[in-house]
């Protein structure tokens, strides 16, 4: 199951997290109270030039010392603190959420065209695979993920998400199957600017994982969703594919359809399938991916999971359920069901 909802304000006007909390709570039938999470863009304007690293620490002794050490050797920590939380009766605190505002030292990654991103990616992989008791779950600029094991309301209140204002929000209500309801397993998954929420199961996970790992990414969270974030980073950032083509690689048209296309489209779509066959995602899923520029929602090629989109003024909503969208905004200009594999894209206005 799982329920997802996301919203973007194309004019970049801020929205606090209170409405999305209510919308997500409406879909409690889709979750089990073992995981919920939110991602918000534009929430750290004072530190917009720094990478906001959100971590779960099991304790603040060994793991934190090691993380401090590795971060200091790769750049500068501008500021760090425990993420403010309020105890909730039905949420058991098993980790300490912490945040660093960090600037990597570009000179330490010579030969890279994107040294800052590459350092951050490397640090995330390194911390998550080598430092026991520490997990980076959010690593973008001016972005934050807030997640834990619990019902959506409890998680939202724990992190006080109504205190943050963002122009993009992603939210996820989890019914865990692949991994137990540990905090790291809750959505959204994030790497750099990419955040992902996902309802479903990726049956091609093994193929996607082998593909992405051959590019140096390491899957550390024992769940299929994280490969989506890494695939977006590879295809979207490193290979520079526009969002619609990136989604085309993930959920391409069937060959029958491609065979009927005009030559230029045929060539492009065949090239995508041949080149990015290992990035094709199979199985039932509805996914919303966000970057600082916008959000894109899409489903698997035969739409085995629900996805609905709606617009109201500058705002675009994508969700598992229309009811959840209406909980956020009762007066919608347009509501529609995207076709299987067809992306719904919402970009901020330039």
């Amino acid at each position, binding site marked *: 199951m799982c329920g997802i909802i996301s919203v973007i304000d194309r004019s970049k006007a801020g929205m606090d997290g209170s409405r999305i909390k209510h919308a997500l709570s409406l879909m409690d039938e889709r979750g089990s109270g073992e995981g919920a999470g939110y991602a918000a863009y534009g929430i750290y304007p004072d530190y917009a030039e720094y990478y906001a690293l959100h971590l779960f620490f099991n304790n603040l002794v060994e793991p934190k010392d090691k993380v401090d050490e590795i971060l200091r050797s790769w750049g500068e920590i501008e500021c760090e603190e425990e993420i403010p939380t309020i105890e909730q009766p039905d949420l058991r605190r098993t980790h300490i959420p912490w945040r660093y505002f960090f600037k990597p030292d570009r000179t330490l990654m010579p030969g890279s065209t994107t040294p800052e991103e590459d350092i951050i990616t490397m640090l995330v992989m390194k911390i998550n695979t080598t430092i026991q008791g520490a997990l980076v779950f959010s690593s973008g600029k001016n972005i934050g993920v807030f997640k834990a094991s619990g019902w959506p309301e409890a998680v939202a209140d724990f992190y006080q998400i109504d205190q943050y204002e963002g122009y993009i929000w992603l939210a996820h209500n989890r019914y865990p*199957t692949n991994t137990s309801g540990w905090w790291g397993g809750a959505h959204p998954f994030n790497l750099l600017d990419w955040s992902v929420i996902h309802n*479903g*199961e990726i*049956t*091609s*996970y*093994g*193929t996607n*994982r*082998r*593909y992405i*790992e*051959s*590019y140096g990414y390491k899957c550390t969270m024992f769940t299929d969703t994280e490969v989506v974030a890494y695939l977006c980073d590879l295809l979207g950032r*490193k*290979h*520079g*594919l*526009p969002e619609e*083509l990136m989604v085309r690689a993930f959920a391409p048209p*069937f*060959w*029958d359809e491609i065979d009927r296309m005009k030559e230029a489209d045929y*060539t*492009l779509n*065949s*090239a*995508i*399938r*041949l*080149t*990015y*066959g*290992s990035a*094709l*995602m*199979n*199985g*039932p899923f509805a996914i919303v991916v966000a970057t600082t520029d916008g959000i894109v929602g899409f489903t698997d*090629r*035969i739409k*085995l999971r629900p996805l609905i989109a709606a617009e109201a003024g500058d705002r675009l909503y994508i969700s598992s359920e229309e009811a959840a969208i209406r909980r956020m905004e009762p007066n919608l200009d347009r509501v529609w069901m995207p076709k299987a594999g067809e992306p719904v894209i919402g970009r901020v206005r330039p």
Partner: protein
Amino acid sequence: MSIGSVPIKFRVSIDPNRCMLCERCIENCPYGTYRREDEKIIVDSRSCVACHRCVAMCPRDAISIEEKPIDYRSHPLWTREAREAIYNQARTGRIVLAGMGNATDLPSIFDRLLLDACQVTNPSIDPLREPMELRTYLGKKPRKLEIKKGRDGDIELKTTLSPNLKLNIPIMIGHMSYGAISLNAQLSMARAVSHLGTFMGTGEGGLHPSLREYQNNMIVQVASGRFGVDIDYLERGAAIEIKIGQGAKPGIGGHLPGEKVGPEVSQTRMIPEKSDAISPAPHHDIYSIEDLKQLVHSLKEATEWKKPVFVKIAAVHNVAAIASGIARSSADAVVIDGFRGGTGAAPRVFRDHVGIPIEAAIAAVDQKLRSQGIRNEISIIASGGIRDSADVTKAIALGADAIYIGTAALIAMGCRVCGTCYRGLCPWGIATQDTKLTRRLDPDVEWQHVANLMHGWTLEISELMGAAGINSIESLRGNRDRLRGYMLDEAMMNVLDVKPVGA
């Protein structure tokens, strides 16, 4: 020492109550097992190879064949096979020849890998109602696409893809040459692959003129003897395969005895009639990987870079490193032939003791190419002992792009795996050039059997994929998460990168 009479391998008996003395058994057996004396068929069991031709032709089911009717004193080390090989070799003083694939009792890894299916959390996909894509492209693929976005938002593709071979199904028929097998056998298989939209190999025997109508579905082979190779041959093929080695006999060459080189074979191979066709162990212009690179390049140049070039190697211990070297040439696919691969004739000691299983070879090659970031540079074609659709599915899940079958296609045409191909008397008209025998194989009938087999496998693979919640072959390829090892040791599972059942 009298070693002339080892116990018979098979005992043939005829039920006199059923036999109607039609003599079909006598006509059909090229090995001289039967003769008629008065009102009785007399049997010489020692001549029987258990090819079952007589059994198939007997209208009364009067014939029965019993294997190993005479027991040796049993011994765990000095098995029947060990003793008989010694008798044979003591008599001849030669290398012992054997046909078909590895005959030792080693466990099959495929049989110890189990496939996955969906339950509850994700729905199975019904291939009768939903699209199921098995289309496969073999050849180099770019690592990434260069896209240029025009001012008006138009997308322009800057990358040009190299020619790939388009297969409707990921199953092809491997290289069995005209000479090793009959023209009728090749014609049957060629018609089947062209009907199904897939490919077969010519082997190192040239392309007979009557196969030209199927040339768009044929892969021409360039092996160490260079038999049958000229520019016309290269240009007719849909792809070109350089054969370095073969799973049944890694490290050694091939030998087509002169008796099989009649006028037609002679013309097709471009060698004198009745002359032995000897393919040397190495290519004498390839003594290192850079020499191979040059040959690939030369073949590409000769065919104006329009055709994919494959390189076939036997699965040997260092297969992964060799494949990664091949991937760095202009080659489009590496064919890995496992130690169970069949052959008309191979030295028994090679057939049974040299090379490694195809399952481990696929896993090692795929892993090595990925760890070096060059998996897109080359497709992997696996072969050697693929018996059914489950083997195909598992091979692809381990990382192969497509597979070659060989023996399975021959069995579809009647072959009973008697392993006597090297005598050139194949009673099914497959591994022989004797027109009395080859005319038994009617291409108009047998192509359908080959096509049926491959089509049946295709349906089964579609069902297996659908059950696993996968609707395109790309998502099966290298998806080792959907495999589990059963009764495999931990070291083997690490090589295969699969978890044990239950994990």
